[in-house]
Structure formats: C-alpha cells, structure tokens
C-alpha cells in the first residue's frame, strides 16, 4: 500500500483511540497495532516496543498515586505535602488502565508508522510542506541510528574491558549519543546542501496513481475516527 493512505489509516486509528470512551475498545486497538508491530524483525522493533509499552506501564503505575478519585480503597499510604494522602482506589486504577491503553495505542501507531511505512514515498507524496515531511522522515530514522550509535559506544567501552553496568552506566552514554547525533545531522545537512536541497524550482519523481487499496485505507481512516467518536 502507498504510504500516504497507510499513514492516514494509522492516524485514524490513533485518533479513534483518543476519542473512544471504553477501556476494552482502546485495548483492542492497542492489541491490533501491537500485532502489526510484532511482524517486524526483532532487531528493528524492540526500541519502539520498549518505548511504547514502557511508557504505558509507567503511566499505569504512577497515575493512581497522583490522582485523587473516590472508589474502593485498595491501598493507603503516607501523607505527602502538596500531593496529599497517597492511596490507590478502584476508580484510579481503571482510569490509569484506560489512559495507559490510550498512550500505548498512540505510541504503537507511531511504531507501526516507523517500522512499516516507506518514508521516502511519504516524502514524495507530500505535495506541500515537503521540508517538514522530510524532517519528520529523517527524525523517524533517528531511533535506529541512535540505537546503532549506542551499540557502537558500548562496544568501544567493552573493547577497553569496561562493561557499562546499571542505569547509571547506561545514562552516561546519553550525552555523547546526543552530541554524536548532532554531529551526524550537521554532516547530513552539509551533504544535502551540496546536493541542492532548498534550491527554488525543485521537482519530484512522478508517483503512480492511487489504487483501490489506497482508497479503502483512506475510507477506513475516516471510518475509524467516526466510529471512535460515536461508538467505541
């Protein structure tokens, strides 16, 4: 399928997850997107899955402690200034689960976009705002590039007999990783300028017309938003 309607479909599913009001509906959408992610090769999918599932899990764990909603109290803890008494109630738990599923669904929609869509063709499909779309496509490639850089830094450390251990050891790699990605982006910007990027009068490689699958995907995107808003 061509990337523009596929991106629209993913956007529709993410919007449906944000508009839906029932936890089961949102969880079903997240599960569907998770299944699509799991079809990608392990080496490519894991950073996205760790990011999506990890952030959703963190939201689920933290939300009951910062919200104060009535319901059956499962646990009651100490009183903390500003936050008040820490407790976990049934309403807070169900709300946390709902929001965690929402976050997971939106993150997984992005993961499917990053893992499965042909970003080149998405850039070429952009009739307007080509620069912005190119920036998004390049940013999408940042995750695997950072992963490669991080592996390289760890390998160079291990090559000196040093094993980066624990969260602190890994966290020390963040600053050089960030600096490295800035250096890389400068090199890329230089190469792009040398190849005429930004020059007025640019043209585009012609793209084939949309077929039935693309039209169905676009209709599916609209349908997902409507169904999400009205019935889910």
């Amino acid at each position: 399928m061509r990337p523009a309607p596929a991106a629209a479909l993913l956007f529709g599913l993410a919007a449906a997850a944000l508009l839906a009001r029932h936890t089961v509906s949102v969880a079903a959408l997240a599960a569907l997107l998770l299944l699509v992610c799991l079809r990608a090769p392990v080496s490519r999918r894991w950073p996205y899955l760790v990011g999506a599932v990890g952030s959703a899990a963190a939201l689920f764990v933290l939300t009951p402690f910062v919200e104060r909603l009535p319901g059956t109290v499962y646990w009651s803890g100490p009183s903390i200034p500003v936050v008040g008494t820490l407790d976990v109630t049934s309403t807070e738990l169900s709300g946390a689960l709902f929001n965690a599923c929402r976050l997971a669904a939106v993150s997984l929609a992005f993961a499917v976009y990053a893992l499965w869509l042909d970003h080149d063709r998405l850039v070429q499909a952009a009739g307007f705002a080509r620069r912005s779309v190119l920036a998004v496509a390049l940013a999408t490639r940042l995750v695997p590039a950072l992963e490669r850089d991080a592996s390289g830094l760890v390998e160079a450390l291990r090559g000196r007999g040093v094993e980066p251990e624990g969260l602190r050891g890994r966290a020390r790699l963040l600053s050089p990783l960030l600096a490295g990605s800035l250096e890389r982006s400068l090199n890329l910007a230089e190469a792009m300028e040398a190849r005429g990027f930004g020059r007025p009068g640019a043209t585009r490689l012609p793209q084939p017309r949309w077929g039935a699958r693309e039209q169905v995907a676009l209709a599916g995107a609209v349908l997902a938003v409507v169904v999400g808003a009205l019935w889910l």
Partner: protein
Amino acid sequence: MALARTEGLSYAYPGSAVPALRDVSVDLAPGQVTLVLGRSGSGKSTLLRAFAGLVPHFHGGRFSGRVEVAGLDTRRHHPARLAGTVATLFQDPEDQVVFTRVLNEVAFGLENVGTPPRQIEGRALEALRSVGAEHLAGRLVTELSGGELQRVCLAATLALEPQLLLLDEPTSQLDPEAAKALIELALQLARDRGTSVVLSEQRPVLPFEICDRVLFLEDGRLAFDGLVGRARTWLEQHHPLFVSDGGWAGVHRPTHGQVTCRLDGVSFAYEDNLLVLDSASIELRRGEIVALVGPNGSGKTTLAKLAAGLLEPLSGRVERRGRPTYLSQDPGRYVLRERALDEVAVGVDGDLAAASRALAAVGLIGCEDRHPRDLSSGERERLALAAVLAPDPDLLVLDEPTRGVDPERKLELAALLRANTTRATLVVTHDVLFAKTVADRIVSLAPDRELANV
C-alpha cells in the same frame, strides 16, 4: 579556459586560530583529473569544500580571496545553487544518505536541481547502470555493503552530470579491489563527459596511474602543483612515503611466546543466520604482529571481535590468556568524557598516570585537557589508539587503524606497534602496504571464509 579557479584563497574555520587554507591559487581545466595529496589536516577536504561553496556558506569562518566555478563566484552563489554544476562525493557514505531506498536517493539531487519529472527516473537508473548498481535500485540503503553504498553515492553525483566532480577520499572504506574499481569507474565516466575531477586520496598509488595533475598541500599551503610525472620526482624528494611501498618501521623481532589467543574452528552468524565465519582457526602469540586482510564482507571485523571477546562464537572454541583490548573502526566512539586524559583513563580505572603515558606514546602531549570532540580527525584517531593502549593489553586488536590516515602517520603507527615485543597484536586492514610494513605475518580471509597465510 579554466572551469574553476581559486585566487589567493585563505580560510579559517570558526574558532580556529590556524588557517586551514593559506593563499591557495589553482586553475582547473575541463576534462582534467587532479589528485590532491597532503598529510591529515593539511586542508585537502577544505579545498574541495571551497569549490563546492560549502566553505564558507555552510561552515562560516574567515574567508578571503576568490573561488569561481563555471563563472559563478562561490561567495555570491550558495552551494545549493552550485549543485548540478558541482557534485561532491564525501568520505563517509552513511553521512550523506537522505532517503531509505536507492532509487529515491539517486533521484534526490535531480529533484533538487529541477530536472523535468519525466526524466528523473530514467537518469537515476542510467547513473546506477553506469556504476554497475542498477540491480540495487529497489533496495534499502541500510541493506547495502560499504562498497555498494559508496557506488550508490557515486551514482547520485554522476546523475547530476556535473562539470566539476569532487571526490573526497571516496575509497577510505573499501578494499583495494573495490577502491580500484570505484576510482577507475569515476574517472572513466568523467573523461567520457569532459568533467573536471578533483580527487583527494590517502592511498595515491592507483590515482597516480590515471590522474593528469597533482596538488600537494602542506599546512594549508599549496606546496606543489604540477603534472603527474614531475609530481613523482618532487614527492620522492620531499615526501617519499607518498610514492613508496610503505617504508621501514623499525626492527621487530617476534618472540613467538605463549599463545595469547586461539580461535579453533570458529563459526559465527548474525541475526540473519547467514554464516559470516565458517570454521576459522587462527593463533596469536605474544610478541608477534599479525595482519588480517581480505575483501569487504569477508568477516575480518567479526573475527577480530571474536578474538577480543566482544562476540561469542556460534560453534568452535576461543581461548584467551590475559587482557585483550579492541580498537573500533570509528574513532568517534571514544568521546565519553569531557577531557582527552579522562577518556583514555576510562579503560584503566581512572589511572591518570597510565593515561598520560598512553597519550604521550601516540604524540598527544598537550591535548590532555581538550574535549575529544574538539580534536582534529587525525588527533581523534590517535586518542582512540591511546585509549586501547593505556591498559597495556596482552592482546591488542586494531580494526582498520589506517582509515583516512596519511602515509607518514601510517609509518609512525607501524613503528609504535613494532616497538613493543611483549603483546600479541592483530591488525585488521584493507591497506596491504601497511600490512606488509607492520606485520610479521599476514593472514588473508578470502570471500569463501578460508583463512590462509600470505
């Protein structure tokens, strides 16, 4: 009439007190192939960037003099405006790739310069065909080998049919065969079209046979400018290593001591389950220097990582005695700390005295307090070397330590390695001349994964 010229060009990068180019005046004729030589940091890449307009437009800095390409003054015309007239192939192909698919990557420049849409695909495919890479058109760039990717990048520059083609050390990541093929191809295509080619190289033996003219830069100054015949004589007098077969790196008497590392029938495969190494065996003894050579993709780096303990074999046995260290191909991976001294001390539990000795051994005295990222590319390479020398390893594994290194620095490195007679050293390299200069024994890893003594 000259296609491109510099007149009294001087340039210093922002924040640098030392000019990268000093009063350089050069004329480039159409159809001429010009080889630019010089030590690391002598200004070769900066000169090429000046012809592309990237200096000063992209980098900023202090610029004086004049650069003209096809009648366009580069100070008044931005690099994007010069694109098409000028095309540049940079050293590291991974840093210049914008798109994920090969055809789109080659088409990118054509789109930018406003090629009529109906012609774009045809010209991109034609450029890929001319470099023997038409079959790669639909592939992902991430799936390509280093040689394939460099050919795709060459196709992207040739597709523009430039009048001036700038090749900045385009073969530094390629084995000798692939490097020869790439240079011959680029120059043949350029000659067929009457393109002026400027090629900077650290392995000048091949380009010498096919270039017309040689420029030699020394500390940013043009020390020599002449035809290739005269250049050979001048280099023999002033910089003989640029035209010799490696040079003498000192006496090294291998002691053939105890075995430090033994790989016995080792096989290895990455995630795709394709065997990279199949039943490879090698012994490294204390006191000897072994060079491992072979074409791109033959498994040299994998074998080196197995020897250093960075990978575990799929089958077979690896025995090691003592501490190994491994120098990565990319010196940009040795930038974890804020000071060069602290960076080197990472591998020795913060022992600053040992780190200081290692920095001195590689000639980086005075750089202790500088940030690793502020060092020049040559200095970064030496810093990385110091980082793996500091622990005084029993087995030193160096992966392509001469990438982008000039012949004089290579000889210094060979002398440094040969001065030690107590550790086992494994040098993975494409550079056969360096292998002959430094090693007691050369082992070749052929495409069929067989190891053989050379």
